[in-house]
C-alpha cells in the first residue's frame, strides 16, 4: 500500500509530484481499449465496463453462470450498499475514477487497490433499483415507463444505468443512484481530518483546506443528479443545431436528485475508432477540441471528467458527449487570465506579460527569482499545439510529456508554481483531452481552430467543420464582453 495516502490526494489536487514518477498515459489508454473491446453494452458511461472487462474472477465465468453469480452478489439492501461503499470506500472509488487517466503514474499497488475497489462494487439487484425508482419517481418502474430493462447495462460511479422506453415512446438511459450513498459520502467528506492529514504530507506547499473544499464541492455536486441534469440540459441547448457536437436531452419529468433520465444514444466507443481511418479520427479530434474550448470560453463550463467512456462517435466528426456529473462553472473573470496567458505567449510572444498574467491568476508566486524566459520555457509544453499556425499531430509522447511536466517537481520553476483552487479541475484538460487526442494521433491546425474560438479573436472558419458551424454560430447568444476584450 506504499504511497496510498499521497497518491489519493495527488489525484485530487493534481499535485502528485511526490509520488508520480513517469506517467505513461499511452499505456493506460491502450488497456482501456482492450477492456472496452469486450463491451456488450452500447451505452457508454463511466466505468461502464466494470461488469464485463475488469470484473473479479468470479464474474469471469462464462455466460449464464456469470449472470447468475452477478445477480447472487448484487446489493440487495441499503445495508449492502453501506457495507460495500461506506466508511471512505465510496470516496476512494470516486477518487480512483478521477484518477483513471493518470493512473500509470500511480504505484502499482495503489492502482491495484483502486481497481479492485471498483471491482468490489456489484450492481444493485433489480428489486433494489426498482425501489429507488419508486422512491424517486413515485411508482414502480413498469408503471413509470412503458418498458423497463431490469438488468443494468452499465455501472456509473455511484449508481447504474438501465435502459427504458418512456410512455411517449422515447428510448432513454436511466441512471439510478445507490440508496444512501450520497449521505454516506457526504458524511465522509464532512469529516475531513483524515483527508487533511493525508494532504498535509502530500502537498505541504498547497492550500490544503482549499483543495479539500474544492474536492468536497465537486463530489457533493456529483451526488445530486439534479445538478447534472441542469448542466447537461444547458449544454444540450447551447450546442443544439451544432453540426458535429451533440449532448443528449434530459427528460426533466423523470429526473430527480437520485435518478436522471436522458435520451438513449448509441454509437461507437473510443476503443472502436482505433480501427477507423486517420481522416475520421482527425475529424473526431477536432470536434473534441471544439467542444472543450467552446464549453469553456462560451458556456464558462468545463466537464471535469474527460474519460474515454464519455464519448460516442458517429463518423464524419460527429460526437455525442455524455455524463456531466462533474462540471465546473467559471465566471468570465476566472477565465480571463487563462485567455490572457494564451494570448501573451502564443499571439504576442511576450514572456514578460505572460508571467504577469500567471502571477495575477495565482499560478506563480510573485517575485520568484526566475527569468521571464525560464518561466515561459517551463510552461511552453502546455501551449505547444497552439504556438504557431500550422498543422500539428498530437502524439502519445506529447501527452506524456505534458503530464510529466505537470508532475515535474525538480525544475527550478516548480517550487514557485501553484494551482489556485478554482483551476484545480481545469488541469484535466491537459491530462485528459491531450491524452485522448494523442491516442487518436489527431492532426489539425489547432492554433487556427483556437483563433476561431478565442473570444478576443473569433477568427473566420479555418476548416470545413468551422464553416459548417456558421449557421449555428449565427444563432447563439453573444459572448461575455469581458472575454472578448482579453489583452
Amino acid at each position, binding site marked *: *500500500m*506504499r*504511497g*496510498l*495516502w499521497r497518491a489519493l490526494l495527488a489525484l485530487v489536487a493534481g499535485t502528485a509530484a511526490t509520488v508520480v514518477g513517469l506517467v505513461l498515459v499511452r499505456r493506460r489508454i491502450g488497456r482501456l481499449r482492450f477492456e472496452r473491446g469486450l463491451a456488450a453494452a452500447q451505452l457508454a458511461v463511466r466505468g461502464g465496463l466494470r461488469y464485463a472487462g475488469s470484473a*473479479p*474472477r*468470479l464474474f469471469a465465468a462464462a455466460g449464464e453462470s456469470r449472470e447468475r*453469480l452477478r445477480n*447472487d*452478489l448484487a446489493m440487495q439492501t441499503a445495508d449492502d450498499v453501506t457495507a460495500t461503499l*461506506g*466508511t*471512505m*470506500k465510496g470516496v*476512494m472509488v470516486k477518487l480512483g475514477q478521477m484518477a483513471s487517466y493518470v493512473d500509470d503514474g500511480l504505484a502499482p*499497488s495503489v492502482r*491495484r*487497490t*483502486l*481497481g*479492485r*475497489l471498483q*471491482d*468490489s462494487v456489484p450492481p444493485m439487484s433489480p428489486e433494489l433499483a426498482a425501489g429507488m425508482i419508486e422512491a424517486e419517481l413515485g411508482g414502480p418502474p413498469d408503471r413509470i415507463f412503458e418498458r423497463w430493462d431490469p438488468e443494468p447495462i452499465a455501472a456509473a460511479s455511484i449508481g447504474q444505468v438501465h435502459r427504458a422506453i418512456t410512455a411517449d415512446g422515447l428510448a432513454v438511459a436511466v441512471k439510478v443512484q445507490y440508496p444512501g450513498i450520497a449521505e454516506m459520502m457526504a458524511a*465522509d467528506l464532512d*469529516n475531513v*481530518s*483524515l483527508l487533511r*492529514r493525508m494532504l498535509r504530507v502530500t502537498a505541504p506547499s498547497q492550500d490544503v483546506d482549499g483543495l479539500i473544499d474544492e474536492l468536497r464541492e465537486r463530489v457533493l455536486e456529483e451526488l445530486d443528479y439534479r445538478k447534472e441534469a441542469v448542466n447537461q440540459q444547458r449544454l444540450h441547448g447551447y450546442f443544439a443545431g451544432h453540426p458535429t457536437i451533440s449532448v443528449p436531452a434530459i427528460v426533466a419529468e423523470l429526473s430527480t436528485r437520485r435518478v436522471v433520465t436522458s435520451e438513449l444514444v448509441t454509437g461507437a466507443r473510443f476503443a472502436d475508432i482505433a480501427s477507423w481511418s486517420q481522416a475520421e479520427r482527425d475529424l473526431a479530434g477536432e470536434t473534441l477540441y471544439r467542444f472543450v474550448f467552446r464549453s469553456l470560453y462560451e458556456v464558462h463550463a468545463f466537464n471535469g471528467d474527460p474519460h474515454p467512456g464519455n464519448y460516442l462517435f458517429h463518423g464524419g466528426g460527429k460526437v455525442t458527449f455524455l455524463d456531466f456529473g462533474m462540471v465546473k462553472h467559471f465566471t468570465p473573470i476566472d477565465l480571463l487570465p487563462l485567455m490572457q496567458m494564451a494570448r501573451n505567449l502564443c499571439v504576442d510572444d511576450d514572456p514578460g506579460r505572460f508571467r504577469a498574467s500567471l502571477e495575477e491568476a495565482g499560478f506563480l508566486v510573485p517575485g520568484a527569482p526566475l527569468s521571464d524566459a525560464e518561466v515561459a520555457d517551463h510552461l511552453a509544453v502546455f501551449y505547444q499545439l497552439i504556438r504557431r499556425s500550422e498543422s500539428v499531430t498530437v502524439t502519445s509522447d506529447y501527452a506524456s510529456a505534458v503530464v510529466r511536466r505537470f508532475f515535474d517537481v525538480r525544475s527550478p520553476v516548480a517550487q514557485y508554481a501553484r494551482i489556485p483552487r478554482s483551476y484545480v479541475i481545469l488541469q484535466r484538460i491537459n491530462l485528459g483531452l491531450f491524452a485522448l487526442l494523442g491516442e487518436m494521433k489527431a492532426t489539425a491546425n489547432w492554433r487556427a481552430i483556437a483563433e476561431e474560438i478565442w473570444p478576443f479573436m473569433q477568427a473566420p472558419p479555418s476548416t470545413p467543420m468551422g464553416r459548417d458551424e456558421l449557421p449555428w454560430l449565427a444563432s447563439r447568444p453573444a459572448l461575455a464582453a469581458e472575454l472578448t476584450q482579453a489583452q
Partner: protein
Amino acid sequence: MNEYADAAGLVARSAAAYAESIPAEPADDGLFGPASVAWRMSGDLSSPVAGLRALLIQALHPLAMAGVDQHSGWRADPVGRLAATSAYLATITFGERGAAERAASRVRRIHQRVTGVDPFTGGDYAASDPQLLLWVHAALIDSNIVARELFGTPLQDADADSYIEEMVVAAELVGVPAVMVPASRASLAQYLDAARPQLACSPAARESMGYLLDPPGLDEDLADIWQDIREAAIVSLPEWARELYGYRAPVLTPARRNEIRQALGVLDAVFLGEPGVLEARQRIILRMRAAVRA
C-alpha cells in the same frame, strides 16, 4: 534484549493467509455454518483493532505471555506469526470441519512442547493448560465484541450472546473442556473479572507489546494508520488493563472516532486490493446468501 525482525509485508501476508483459508468448493459448512453469527462477525472494519486489543489483554497473563515469549520465536518473523494466527482463525471459522480439526490438532501438538518456568512469577506453565487457553480465548471473543461496538457495526445483544455461545466450540478445539467456557455475555464478563488477580504486566509483556504498538519497518502509509489502530486498541481496553500497562486513557471525541473509522475503512480497502481477498469475501457472501434462501 531480543532482536526483532521488521514488520514489512504485514497486509500482504495477512491477506494471502486469509484468502487461502476460505475454501472454494467446501464439502461441508464447517463448525459454524453460513447462518452463524460467527460468519457475520468476520470481516468487520474493526478487526485490526480487535486483534491488537486481544493481544494486549492476553499478554497480561504472565504465564500465557511467558509461553509465547520463550517458545514461539515470533521475534524472528512477527508478521508470519500474525499471518498464521489469521489463517488459523479463518480456517476454523470458514474451513471444512476436517480442515478446522487438522489446524487445531496442529496447534495442540505445538502446545504440548511449550512448557517452562515463568521468570516473572516463578510459576510453571504449560501451553496446553486449559486455564491459559481459556484466557486467550476469552480475551479474543471479548475483543471482537468490544472493538465492533466502538469502531465497527455493533452487534445486537442477542447476537452477542449467540456469538459467545457459538465460539465455545473454538475453545474446545484447542483443548478447553466445554464446561469451563463462558457461553453468554454475563458469564464472559464474570470470567474476566474473576481472572483479574492473576494478571500483571511482566517485563516480557511490556517489551512485546511495546513492539506491537510501534512495529518498525511498516510501509509508511500503514505506519500512519497503525497509529490510529493503536489508539483505538488502547481506548477500547478495560480500565484495569490500561492501568496495568500504565497507559493513559486517550479521550475519544466523536471526531477522532470518525477519523479512526475512516482510517480503518481505507485499510480495509487496501486489504481488499490484495490478491484473492475479494474473491474470498465473495465466496463467503454467496454461501451466506444461499443459507438465507434455504
